[in-house]
C-alpha cells in the first residue's frame, strides 16, 4: 500500500519509471480480470491496452485519492462493459502461445491452460452481470460491498448474482467432468 502511494505521487509528477512499475505490478492481474469478463484474449488485450494508455495519458490531472488497484480494476470493468456493448465478436479460443499458465512446470502449463479454458468457457455461459460479479470476487478479491458500489446495485443483488453464478458454474463444470 505504501508503495502504491509513492507510485501514485511519482506518477503525478510525470515519472515514467513509476508508470512502468505500476504497469508491471498490475498487468497480469488486470489481464486475468479482462479475460474473465470478455472470454476472448484479443478483446481482453484490447481492454487492458486501452486502460493503460488512458491511465498513462492521465498523469497531469491524476487525482486519485483511494486505492490504486481498485481504481485500475474499475477502469477495466468499465472498459470491458463498453467493449462488450460495442463488439460483435464470437467467443474465441485462447491462443496458448500467447499465454503462460500459473506454474512454470511444462506439464503443469498445459494442464493449467486446459483448466483455465474450461473455466472460461463456463464463465462465458453466464449472464454478464453474474460473470462480472464472480470474476471480481474470486479473482479481483473484491468484497461484495465494493462490487455493489462498482455495479451500482445493492449488496443483496451482488450476493444473489454471485450465488446464482457459482451454482451455474458448478452445474456446467460437473456436467463436463461427467462427459
Amino acid at each position: 500500500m505504501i508503495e502504491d502511494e509513492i507510485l501514485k505521487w511519482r506518477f503525478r509528477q510525470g515519472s515514467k519509471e513509476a508508470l512502468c512499475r505500476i504497469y508491471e505490478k498490475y498487468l497480469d492481474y488486470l489481464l486475468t480480470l479482462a479475460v474473465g469478463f470478455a472470454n476472448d484474449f484479443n478483446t481482453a488485450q484490447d481492454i487492458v491496452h486501452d486502460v493503460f494508455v488512458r491511465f498513462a495519458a492521465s498523469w497531469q490531472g491524476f487525482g486519485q485519492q483511494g486505492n490504486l488497484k481498485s481504481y485500475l480494476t474499475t477502469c477495466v470493468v468499465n472498459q470491458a462493459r463498453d467493449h462488450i456493448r460495442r463488439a460483435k465478436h464470437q467467443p474465441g479460443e485462447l491462443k496458448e502461445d500467447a499465454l503462460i499458465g500459473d506454474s512454470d512446470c511444462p506439464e503443469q502449463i498445459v494442464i493449467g491452460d486446459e483448466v483455465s479454458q474450461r473455466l472460461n468457457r463456463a464463465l462465458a455461459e453466464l449472464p454478464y452481470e453474474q460473470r462480472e460479479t464472480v470474476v471480481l470476487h474470486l479473482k479481483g478479491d473484491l468484497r461484495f460491498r465494493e462490487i455493489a458500489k462498482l455495479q451500482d446495485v445493492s449488496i443483496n443483488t451482488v450476493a444473489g448474482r454471485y450465488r446464482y453464478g457459482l451454482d451455474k458454474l458448478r452445474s456446467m463444470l460437473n456436467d463436463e467432468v461427467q462427459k
Partner: protein
Amino acid sequence: MSFSADAELRKQLLDDALKAHEQTGTQSPFEKANIWRTIMKSRTTKLAAAAVVVIAGVLCVQFLTGTNAYAQVVQEIRNARTVVYTVITQTNQGNGETVKTDVAYKEPGLLRMSTVDGYVIILDSTSGKVISIVPTLQMYTIGDVKNLLNNIDTTKGPFDSIESMKKLPAKADEHLDPREIDGVICDGYKVKQGDLTTTVWIDAKTGDLVQVEQKYASAPGMNKIIKNIKFNVVLDDSLFSMTPPEGYRASELKSDAFASVSTEDMFIEFMRLWSSLTVDGMFPPVATPTPKVIMDMGQQGKLKGEWNMPVMIRMTNGMLFVYRLPQSSNWRYMGENVKFGTPDKAIFWYRPVGSQMYRVIYADLTVREVAEDKLPK
C-alpha cells in the same frame, strides 16, 4: 485462473502506454506553479487572492454546517451493518388504516419483518429461504423462494426501504424549513432519485436521524414513513432463525412454487381471482396487498370462497409481475374500489421496456395499447 502476457505482448503494451504518456501535453507539472507565482508578485492581486480564499472558506463553512448533518447521516446509513426501524404504510381501505411493520436488517441479506399482532416474515436472500409465521392461524410457511427473489429490483421488494436509504447521495437536492416531528425540531433534506423522492428529517440539535419519508410518483400506494431508526444495534442470529414456533402447523412451499418469469397474464389472473373471492367483487386496494391486508379483510367479512395455498401462489405470481417491472415502466394501479366488469374503467397501466405505448388493463380485464397523452388522469 490466472493469465500472464508473454514478453512480446508485455513490451508492446508498455510501449503504447509510454507513448501516450509522452504525448500528453508538454507542460511540466512544475510549470503550473507559474500561475500562482504571477498572482503573488503583485501586492494588489495578492490581497484579492487572499480575499477570495477567505470568502470561499466562509461560504464553505456555512454550506457544510447545514449539509454536514445530512452527509453524516447518509454515511452512517451506508456503513451500517444492522438497522432496525419501523415502516408505516397505508392500506388504502378507505378508513386510512395504517400498517406498522417493525423491521430488523442484518448484512449481507437477513431481514425480519413483524407486525403488532405477531405476524412475522424472515427472509434470507443469500440462501433464498423464507419463513412466514401467522400466530392467529397457528401456522407457518417455509420455503425456497429463489424464483421469488430472482429478477426483482431490490428497490421494489422486501428490502425496498433499507436499500433506498443506502442509495441516498451524499448531497441533498433541497434543504427544507425546520419542522417538529414527535416533539423534536428537525431539519429536512429532500432528495429526488427518478421516481422516488426521499425526505430525511434530522434532529437539529443532535444530528440524529428522526424520520425518513419515501414517496413514489408513479406508485403512491408504496409511499411510506420510516421511524425509530437505529444503526449497528446488536442483532442476534436467533432473530433470523428459520425454525418455526413449537406447535404450529406447516404449509410447505415447493421450491418451484413461484414463477421465475412473470407475465401480464399472471397479473390479470390475480385480478380475476381476487375479485371473484371478495364479497363485493372489487379489485384489491393496492397492486400488491400484504398478507395483513388479506387477514384484515377476512376478519371484516369481506372475503369469500377458498383462500388456499394454490390460490395464494397464483396471486403471488401476479404480484411478482408488478414487483419485477422496471422503474421505467411508470406503472400505476387504479383498481381500488373498482368492481370487476365496470365498463371503460382502467385499473392498471404500464409501459413495456422499449415501447412508447402503454398497456392498459381495464376492469373487464381486457387490455388495450394507449399513448401516454391518452392515459386516464
